[in-house]
Every structure is written in C-alpha cells, then in structure tokens.
C-alpha cells in the first residue's frame, strides 16, 4: 500500500503542473497594465490644505519624531497672527519606508499617504521632495477638518504679555 501511495504521490504533481501549464497566468503585466491600489495604499506622501485653502501643517515636528528612518525634516516659523507653519519642509523619499507612522502622528491631518506608487527616479537627489513638491491644493482624505477652528489662533496680546505669563525663553542664552 505504501508503494501505491508513493507512485500516486509521484504522478499526481505531474498532472497538476500540466493543468497549470494551460491556464492563464495570474501575472499583471506592469507597465502596460496598471492595477489601481486601494485608497488607503501607502505610497507618495503629500501635505494637504484645510478647506479654506490654508496650509494644515503647523510644523510640530511630530511626524519627523515618529519617522523611524528620520527622512522628514522641517523648520518651524510663525505668522504675525501666531499661526505656525513650516518655513521649509523636506521628505527624503530615498530613505522613506512608507510605513505611514508620520500620517498617524500628525495632529492636523496635514501629512497624508497617497496611492501614487510610481515615484522611482534615476537620480537619487530627485527623490528629495521640498515643500512645494509635497504641498497639494486639496484636503486629501478628510475634506472637513480644519485644525485652527478647534484650536484657535488669536491671542489677546503678544506672547509673554498676557496675564500670568512669563516672557518666552531664549534657548540660545540659557546659561546657568
């Protein structure tokens, strides 16, 4: 009986592979046929705007802190009305691993992942995206959310001039 089992087990795979030989392959022929990734696919990162058209990013550095490969860098700046924004914002896509932790960390829904996966490039420096490359004219996945409607910008006076408030610390001269 073992012999019969062995013979059957030897011949069966031949029959199966012969069957597969005449089936249509499941391969998607990439450059000619492109599949549409699901909407939550994690590829090229963008910076979105709020419904009023203002930049959502408040340069809080949470995304660059969350980034496991340190590919996000920025410099914070402040408007006259106290609204924060990124003076420059840079994502190095040659380092990015598209884990999506930056998008999860973002408190203002500014940084978002898009399904656009075709960003490969012959020159590695072309993969360093600046703020103007990242910023899009749209709200991305959430069309309603506006951070400053919840947080507000306006302060009664300039910083450090309000009641019960110390003046801002100058970190450059914080000597003992």
């Amino acid at each position, binding site marked *: 009986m073992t012999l019969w089992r062995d013979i059957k087990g030897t011949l069966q795979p*031949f029959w199966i*592979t012969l069957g*597969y*030989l005449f*089936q249509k*392959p*499941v*391969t998607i022929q990439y450059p000619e046929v492109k599949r549409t990734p699901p909407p939550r696919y994690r590829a090229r990162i963008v910076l979105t705007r709020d419904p009023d058209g203002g930049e959502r990013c408040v340069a809080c550095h949470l995304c660059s802190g969350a980034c496991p490969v340190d590919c996000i860098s920025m410099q914070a700046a402040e408007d006259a009305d106290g609204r924060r924004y990124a003076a420059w914002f840079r994502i190095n896509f040659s380092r990015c691993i598209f884990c999506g932790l930056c998008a999860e960390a973002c408190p203002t829904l500014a940084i978002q992942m898009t399904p656009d996966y075709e960003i490969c490039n012959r020159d590695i420096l072309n993969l360093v995206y600046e703020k103007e490359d990242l910023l899009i004219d749209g709200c991305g996945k959430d069309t309603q959310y506006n951070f400053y409607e919840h947080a507000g910008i306006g302060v009664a006076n300039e910083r450090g001039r309000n009641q019960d408030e110390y003046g801002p610390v100058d970190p450059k001269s914080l000597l003992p």
Partner: protein
Amino acid sequence: MNTAIITVILTLCKLALIFGVVLSMAAYLVLAERKLLGRMQLRYGPNRIGPGGMIQPLCDVIKLITKEDFIPERADKWLFLFAPGLTALTALLSFAVVPFAPPVTLFGQELPMVVCDLNIGLLYLLGLSSLGVYGVVLGGWASNSKYSLLGAMRSLGQLLSYELAMGLALIPVVLSAKSFSITEIVMSQATLPNLVKHPLAFLIFMISVAAESKRTPFDMPEAENEIVGGFHTEYSGMRFGLFFVGEYINLIVIGAMVTVLFLGGWHGPLLPPVAWFLIKVLFVAFVFIWARGSMPRPRYDQLMRFGWTVMIPIGVINILLTAAVLLAINS
C-alpha cells in the same frame, strides 16, 4: 586522395552543424525552461526582450560575460579555472557518437549521419557522462569553500548510486541489439522501440539520467536552499555560465541518449528522420523540465538508498528476465 578530402570536409561540416545546433538549442532550452516553469507556476517567465522574450539568451550571455570573473583567494587556481570547461566539454563530446539520421549517399559516398560511429559507442557515452562529474567535483574541491565541497561530495555520492543502475538498465538494450554501436541499436528499433520491449529498463534509465543530469528532483549537489549554490557557489560570470550551459547541453545529451536507446532514434512515420530525432529529444527535455516543475528534492541518502536497494536489484532481475526471454526466442 580526393575521397579523403571529401570525408574530412564532410566531417568538419557535421561537426560545425552539431556544434551550432547543440549550442543554440542549449541557449534556447534555458529560455524554454524558464518560460515553461513560469507557466507551470501561473506566471509568464521572461517575455520582455524581443518578441516573447526570444532575445533573452543573448542578454544573459552579455550579462554573464561582463560580470566580474572572481577567483577566491585560497582557491586552487588552475583547477578552479579548468573545472567549468571540463563540464561543458564532456557534455559536448558525448554528441560525437549520437546518430541523428540514417546514412545518406553524398558525392558517391555513403555518409553516416554521426560524427564518429564507434563500435563501442554506448561505453563511450557512459564513460563521458561519468567524466562530466569530474568538472563538478574538481570545481567544488578547488573553490576551497565548505558549500562547494559539500556539493562536490554529494555529486560523488549521487554518481555512486545512479551509475550502476544506469549501466544495468542498458544491458537489456545491448542484449536485444547484439551490439554496443549506437547506430546498430537504433537500427534494431526499426519496428518496435526499446521503450515497448524493455519498459522496466526505460524507467530505471530515466530515473538514473535524471540523477546524472543533476537537475531537480536530483539537484542535491547544488541544492540552493541547503548549501547556497553547491559546487558553483564560488563561481561567477562566464565560468558559472559554462557550468550552466554544460548542464543544458547535458540535458540535450540525455534527451539524445534516451531517444537513441529507448525511443527508436530517427525512426518514425511521415516526417523526415532528423525531424523525428529532434522532436523526440525535445520531448524528453520537456519531460525533464516538467519533472523540475513538479517534484520536490529528496535527501541524498534517500537517493542512495533508492539507487542501491531498489534500482540495482530491479535492474539485475530485469537483465536475467530479458536474457531468459531472448534465449527462449532464439532456441
């Protein structure tokens, strides 16, 4: 004098023809194997370069030639350089005794369609196929790497287990053809191929040559997922390419061996003899590719046990039976 010159020229023509056909067949067998294996696994295989991937072999050759030809520091340099050539050479030399068509009359001479019709052609084939293992063993030894050495050792172990059974499977064929000459053996199959006369010998022979070709399911010498690349771990560039091409020439040689010894050589209805020969060789090659797509790899002690305890006893019994039947028929 004149006939001698014609003989030399015709022999050279046959040599060039066989070289060209075998080498281009080997190149396209690689492509055919990749495409067939791909289809068996529900993918396409190479189909980008040229129509349907037909220029792929050329690109592979360019890639292999332009790669660095690396020699390990502590390798035995001369053996290391020599081994891949030996594999390809022995495989190519085997073709000398394979007749691919019946003799034709040309310029008033009878011209055998074989480079050299040795009267011990069968022994020549067996001897060269065993010599082929030297390329593997020397390459594995000279690389001075543990994986290469393990692969070489395995290929020797494999040689010991299949070689005897292979010889034993061929004796019934020789008994019924009453000759060691391959041409005679093919002639003896004019009415009935040896496959029908000696099915058991055919089965043993197929398993033995599968083991001899060092291909899946019997690719223990190069088992990628156990010993990296086996005997060719340290080889790169065109030297690896020679091992690779040698393997595929070997596949064609095995196809030709099975064809002339068991499938009736060039005999067949309607089509010209050469076409029948090629069809049969390619069919055997397809069967081996098919086996590669279907079979898992046994351990090499399993192959050895199978060779010594199953194939050799069956081979001996088969010889005794064949001899008894032939004696009964003749007397």
